[in-house]
């Protein structure tokens, strides 16, 4: 009985207590980041982030209008307990290559708890000191083959010729503007995949490739989110790949300005 109670208490600890701790740390990290952004004069080149400190904010409107996390530098356990963590050495937001971020699926605020819910074209918005970057989830594996013919409409089947279908398709076209299977050396880079924990190649500049195939100045600007899979286990990893579709420079005279993609729900979203 005692052991059972301790195990139950441990589950409670993992799911809730760690989240309380993390919520507080995340709030502190966000406040520090905002203070720093206020002090820094916006620079055009990305500033090299310091280990364990927040340097960007991630918004995923598809997971909630208020979904916002401060992303910190370095994927050690301590940093991951504060929020989504950027793999040191991978690209910075907006850069060519792969901006790779890990986050917990359960406990510690579970920033990536619902990562499996994301559909193709969902916006992954990254705010830095000087820019807004709008990434979008790449087509899923089953959508790749007939992506062009369905007008980028995700999980709605082929576009119908009638008026309603047309409106649907137009909305999806807006949402999916700039999103298409990349192909070539990127053929394996789809919206969502499940990999083994040791498969670190998913965060390479050209995921799955050593990089010789594509010179740095021609690499696609990707985002990669990694978390545990299935939930409550660390047996595998859930990977979401997205591609940069848009960027907006911040206007220092109008700090309240938000990219239109942050409106929720977006056109074409069910």
């Amino acid at each position, binding site marked *: 009985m005692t052991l059972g109670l301790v195990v139950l208490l441990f589950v409670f600890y*993992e799911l809730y207590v760690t989240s309380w701790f993390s919520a507080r740390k995340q709030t502190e990290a966000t406040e520090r980041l905002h203070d720093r952004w206020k002090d820094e004069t916006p620079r055009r080149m990305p500033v090299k982030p310091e280990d364990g400190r927040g340097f960007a904010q991630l918004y995923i409107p598809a997971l909630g209008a208020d979904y916002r996390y401060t992303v910190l530098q370095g994927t050690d356990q301590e940093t991951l307990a504060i929020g989504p963590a950027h793999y040191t050495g991978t690209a910075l937001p907006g850069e060519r290559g792969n901006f790779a971020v890990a986050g917990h699926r359960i406990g510690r605020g579970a920033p990536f708890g619902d990562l499996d819910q994301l559909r193709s074209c969902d916006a992954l918005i990254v705010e830095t000191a000087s820019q807004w970057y709008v990434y979008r989830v790449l087509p899923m594996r089953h959508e790749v083959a007939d992506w062009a013919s369905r007008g980028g409409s995700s999980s709605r089947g082929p576009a119908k010729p009638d008026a309603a279908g047309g409106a649907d398709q137009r909305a999806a076209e807006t949402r999916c503007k700039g999103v298409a299977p990349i192909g070539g050396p990127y053929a394996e880079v789809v919206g969502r995949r499940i990999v083994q924990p*040791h498969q*670190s190649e998913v965060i390479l500049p050209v995921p799955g490739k050593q990089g010789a195939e594509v010179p740095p100045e021609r690499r696609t600007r990707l985002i990669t989110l990694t978390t545990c899979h299935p939930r409550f286990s660390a047996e595998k990893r859930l990977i979401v790949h997205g591609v940069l579709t848009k960027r907006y420079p911040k206007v220092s005279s109008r700090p309240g300005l938000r990219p239109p993609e942050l409106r929720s729900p977006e056109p074409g979203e069910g």
Partner: protein
Amino acid sequence: MYAWIWRKLPGATGIKLVEAALLVVVVVALLLFVVFPWIEPTLPFTDPTAGS
């Protein structure tokens, strides 16, 4: 074990109840804030990073 603890607690039943509750709180707090954070990194449940 629990019966033994109950017998060892001093005082009347009412006081024993309060002491037992206190004991539970202390043990739970010790587990939540000291033991679990300490053993957790050694358990393979929650690592979300690829390549480790």
